[in-house]
Each structure stands twice: as structure tokens, then as C-alpha cells.
């Protein structure tokens, strides 16, 4: 099969509902003697949410970095949007990253650039898009996350929650189909964390973005899993409790020492008799 035909086939498969957008197949990674991921396998379905829970050092963030190509697995296979990425070079990863938006712990905003420059960074630096269109898109995404008035501020002038939301705006500015959230609400107060959670829900439900959320904040994990966004008759976005069908689209994984100790939906997680999970949830 030629490359073009294969690409077309992949596009057709990915266009179907229920298509796998991220696949981890027996992925292992160790730094010297320290094993981070022992044997990790999971699949993320298009438009669904995968929430990866676990204590610090359990390998959650490492999994995200492997998806984005920031780290290479020692063994195993990783597929992103129908492309095998575990053996790609840095240069070959660039087209794959064009469809991945990643939110780092603490936001990782460029501190010498304004909010406008941060949000439009990829469009300004890595595309030939005309400046007027970039500015329009930056305005759109800042409007989407409700931070339009902060467009000319520096990151140091923003609160912690605003920085995370600007990081989300930066990641969605180029319309990726998969979002990777690495501890996006850690360190935020509950009210601010909820605003960030709601951005994740809006992106998933209104923009049909597949999400992988790494966190150890149970409250936020369950909030995202058990709520959904919809537009009312006036077009206003509202966050409401998720329907049972929508709730099932949020799948939990719990990692312990680089291994999956639980995989299932929110209700199954709550009902789990496993002592470690019970301890974690309490």
C-alpha cells in the first residue's frame, strides 16, 4: 500500500466515531535503575476523556511526555492519530505535535512574551498565517476562555489560575484534536480549579477534542468526568451534570509504580474494593 493510500485509510478510520486516537501498547521506561513505566497499555477513543490518576512518581506525567514525543519509551509501541510515534525523530515528531495541545504543570508560559504572543506563539512562529488572521484567532481563543482583557499583560501579572487558562488558550490556538493536561489544576484553589475544569469540559464537548488528563486532584477528575458542556437556546454555554452516556466516555486509569491498577468509569472507581484505591480516594 502506498503512503498516500495508507494516509487516506488512516484519515477514514480516524473520522469514524469510536476511533482510537492514542494507543499505548506495553510501554516501558526506566531511568538507569529507576523504573518509571513497567508495562503500560491503554487506548484513548476519539472525543473521549482518559483521566490518569496516581500518586507522585507513579509515571503519569511521563506517559503524557511519551505521547508528545518529549520522552522516548525504552520498549513498547505508541500510536497517535494513526501514526506510530515511538521511533520518530524530533523532526519527524513535529507534524504529529501539530495535532497535540499540551498543558504543562504551572502552565510553562514564555515569561518574556505577552499573553497575546504566548497564545499566538505557534501561529506567529511556525506558520505562514497572515498577522490579521493570527490576531483574530488569538482574540477568539482568549474570548473562549474569558481572558480577553488580559491580552497585553505579561504572564507575571496574571494569577495562577489565569496562567493555566492562558496555557490552555495557547494549546488550543492551532485547533489540536487531542489535549494533554499535566496537573492543570494542581496548586489552585477549588474555585479557580473549577474554572480550569470547565475549560477542559467545554473543549471536549463543544470542540470535540479528545483529552488525556493527568492529575492527583480527585475532586477535579470527578468534576470533569461527571459534567458536560452544552449551549442553551440563546447560545450561552452552560456546564451541567453529564448524562450516563457522556459519563461513560470519561475513563479512569490509576497508576501505581508504573503499572495500571485500575481502569474503568467514575462509578466503578468509587465502588472499587481495592485497598490502595480506597486509600487513594479517601
Amino acid at each position, binding site marked *: 500500500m502506498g503512503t498516500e493510500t495508507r494516509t487516506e485509510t488512516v484519515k477514514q478510520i480516524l473520522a469514524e466515531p469510536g476511533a482510537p486516537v492514542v494507543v499505548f501498547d506495553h510501554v516501558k521506561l526506566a531511568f538507569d535503575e529507576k523504573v518509571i513505566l513497567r508495562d503500560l497499555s491503554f487506548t484513548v477513543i476519539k472525543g473521549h476523556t482518559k483521566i490518569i490518576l496516581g500518586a507522585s512518581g507513579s509515571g503519569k506525567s511521563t506517559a503524557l511526555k511519551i505521547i508528545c514525543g518529549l520522552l522516548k519509551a525504552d520498549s513498547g509501541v505508541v500510536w497517535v492519530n494513526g501514526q506510530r510515534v515511538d521511533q520518530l525523530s524530533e523532526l519527524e515528531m513535529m507534524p504529529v505535535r501539530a495535532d497535540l495541545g499540551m498543558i504543562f504543570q504551572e502552565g510553562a*508560559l514564555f515569561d518574556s512574551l505577552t499573553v497575546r504572543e504566548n497564545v499566538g506563539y505557534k501561529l506567529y512562529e511556525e506558520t505562514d498565517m497572515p498577522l490579521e488572521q493570527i490576531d483574530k484567532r488569538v482574540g477568539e481563543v482568549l474570548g473562549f476562555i474569558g481572558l480577553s482583557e488580559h491580552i497585553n499583560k505579561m504572564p507575571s501579572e496574571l494569577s495562577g489560575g489565569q496562567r493555566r487558562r492562558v496555557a490552555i488558550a495557547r494549546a488550543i490556538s492551532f485547533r489540536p484534536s487531542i489535549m494533554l493536561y499535566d496537573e492543570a489544576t494542581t496548586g489552585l484553589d477549588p474555585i479557580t480549579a473549577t474554572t480550569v475544569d470547565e475549560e477542559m469540559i467545554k473543549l471536549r464537548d463543544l470542540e470535540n477534542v479528545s483529552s488525556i488528563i493527568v492529575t492527583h486532584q480527585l475532586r477535579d477528575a470527578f468534576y470533569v468526568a461527571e459534567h458536560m458542556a452544552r449551549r442553551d437556546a440563546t447560545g450561552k454555554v452552560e456546564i451541567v451534570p453529564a448524562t450516563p452516556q457522556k459519563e461513560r466516555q470519561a475513563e479512569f486509569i490509576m497508576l501505581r509504580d508504573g503499572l495500571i491498577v485500575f481502569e474503568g468509569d467514575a462509578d466503578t472507581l468509587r465502588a472499587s474494593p481495592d485497598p490502595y484505591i480506597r486509600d487513594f480516594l479517601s
Partner: protein
Amino acid sequence: MVSFIERWGKEAALEVQEYVRLTVLAFHGIFTRPIYRHDIIEQFDVIGAGSLTVVLLAGLFTGAALASQSGLTLDQFGARPVVGRLVSASMIKELGPVLTALMLTGRIGSGIAAEIGSMMVTDQINALRALGTDPIRKLVVPRVLAGIFMAPVLTVISDFIGILGGWVIARYQLQVNSGLYWSSITKGLYMQDVWMGLSKPFVFGFLIVTIACHVGLRTRGGTAGVGRSTTISVVAGSVAVIAADFFVTQIMIALFY
């Protein structure tokens, strides 16, 4: 003890390997797309124009001190009128390039290591990669280009200011005639000296910037790590400059003298 030596050896080999890898990728980035023009211009300004004051001051006082000191020695041989020749030869061949490079190590090397190091520990480098930007092309290539091309320019300025500082002392302290001072410089200066003085800063500029970028990109461990990287960058850069000075001098002597 053996395991300590073995671990040290492995770590040293890894550092060398990563440094060589970085320099190869930086050179590749200079000649291939994408090129970040704005960053290149910005770095020429930061490294070149930004370092001008410190280089001028260092050059001026070095030349003046050199004239003052050498005047005392030359007096013992009744050779005070050739003080200009001694100042110019010392400044152009040795002190200008080395002192300018050491000033740049302190000002630019530390700044680059701290900036890139901070970006490393706050995940900004990973954010760049996730957004499809190669950090070497975006951060290292502009700095390497600015280092290679601005170090010689700053050295020439430093040489001239140093000779001027020497003239002030020669004229007003040593009472040497101005015409005599400047003519002794032109008579005593050979093209080999100029080549030696001009070739060194290219090497020094390259070393200072690549070492600082390498150290910055290897930063780990939060703000303490950034501080450590800054120190390593200045120390390693300074030692590299002095060591490279010796080797370049030997090569130039073998080739031109």
C-alpha cells in the same frame, strides 16, 4: 573509589558527547530552515551592543594599566618611547581578545545559562518542543551566530580603546610624544599579529556561547540548579577561553611566524 572514578568518567563522557551533539545540531541549524531572523537580530543586539560598555571599560583600563606598568620596565632600558609598540602588541595579540572573551563569559555566558536554565526548569523548553519549535534553532543558533560574529567586533573595539588608554598614560604620565607613540605602534605591528588577534575571538565567541547553551540545556533541579548552571557556565567558559588561547596561539605561531 573505582566506582566513583567510573561514574565520574561516564558523566564526563556524557557531557562531552552532549556538547558535541549540540554544536553539530547548532551548525546544522545555521545552514538549514527554519531560521528565526528576529531572534538572530535580537541576539546580535544583546550580545554586541549590550556588551559594549563593559568591553570599553575593560579595554580602556587594561591599556592604561599596561602602559603604566611597561613604562616602568622600559625605563630601565631607556626604551620608554616604544611603549606604544608594547601596548599595541599586547592588546592586539593577547589581552584584547582574552579580556574581551572573559568579560563576555561573565556577562553573556552567565546570562545565557541562567535564561535557558530557567526555561528548562519551568518546562518552557518542553513547551517550545510541544508547540513544534526546535529549541536549538530558536535559542542556540541565534546566540551562536551572535557570539561568533560579535566577539571579534567587540575585540577590535577593545583593542583600539586599550591602545587609546595607553596613549593617555604615555602622553600625560610618561611624557612620551604622541607622534612617537602612534608611529611606534604602526612600525611595530605586523599582519601576523592582526591575524592572531582576529582569529582568537571567533573561537572564543563560539566556545563561550556553546558552553553556556549546553550548560543551560542540561539544567536540572529548580532555582538551585539554575544558580549552579550559571556558575558552571562562567567557570567552564573562562577556563575554555584561556586554554583555547594557548592552543590558538601555538597554531598561529606555527602557521605565520
